[in-house]
């Protein structure tokens, strides 16, 4: 049961952080960082399965591979930005965290540009010249 494992990992980590924080706050921060990384690594294995399903569906539905790839990259950017922003916010730099989130949004928009272009071209195609 992986859920129990993750929850117990979090509890153990928080106990250790409580112990270490009084003596060395920087080590406590590293503990927090590594806990986040560990949980993310456990979760990402399951994300792989889900993504396999999405790709399978895309192939079955004859969707252009480029679109699915773009969507997966967008999901990846969202996950990474979220993770990084949380970590930086834990370190107490919420303004930097806000910038990371902003960067994530901008990069997602940049990745979506080809799709938006395709949509606009399709719409223009509908309009009789």
């Amino acid at each position, binding site marked *: 049961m992986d859920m129990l494992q993750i929850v117990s*990992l979090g509890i*153990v*980590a928080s106990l250790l952080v409580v112990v270490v924080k009084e003596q*060395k706050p920087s080590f406590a921060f590293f503990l927090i960082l590594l806990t986040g*990384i560990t949980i993310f690594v456990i979760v*990402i294995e399951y994300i792989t399965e889900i993504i396999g399903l999405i790709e399978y569906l895309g192939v079955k539905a004859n969707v252009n591979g480029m679109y699915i790839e773009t969507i997966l990259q967008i*999901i990846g950017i969202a996950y990474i930005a979220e993770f990084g922003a949380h970590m930086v916010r834990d370190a107490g730099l919420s303004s930097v965290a806000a910038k990371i989130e902003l960067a994530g949004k901008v990069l997602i928009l940049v990745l979506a540009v080809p799709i938006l272009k395709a949509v606009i071209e399709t719409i223009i195609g509908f309009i009789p010249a």
Partner: protein
Amino acid sequence: MLGDASILFQIAGIGIVVAMIHTILKQMGKEEYAQFASLVGFIIVLIFVIDGISDLFQQIKSVFLFRG
């Protein structure tokens, strides 16, 4: 290396030991050695964390189809 809690205990242990060394060296009046010990402990833990981060980023790259 990832997927178990042993690394967390390792880091917490290093933190406690380094804090102890720091305190003892400070009591002995060797301020600069105390700082140095703290710095070494910090770097050791930093190496653990960087290892984990690079592992995570590699995995994210392979899962979410980032090429190059």
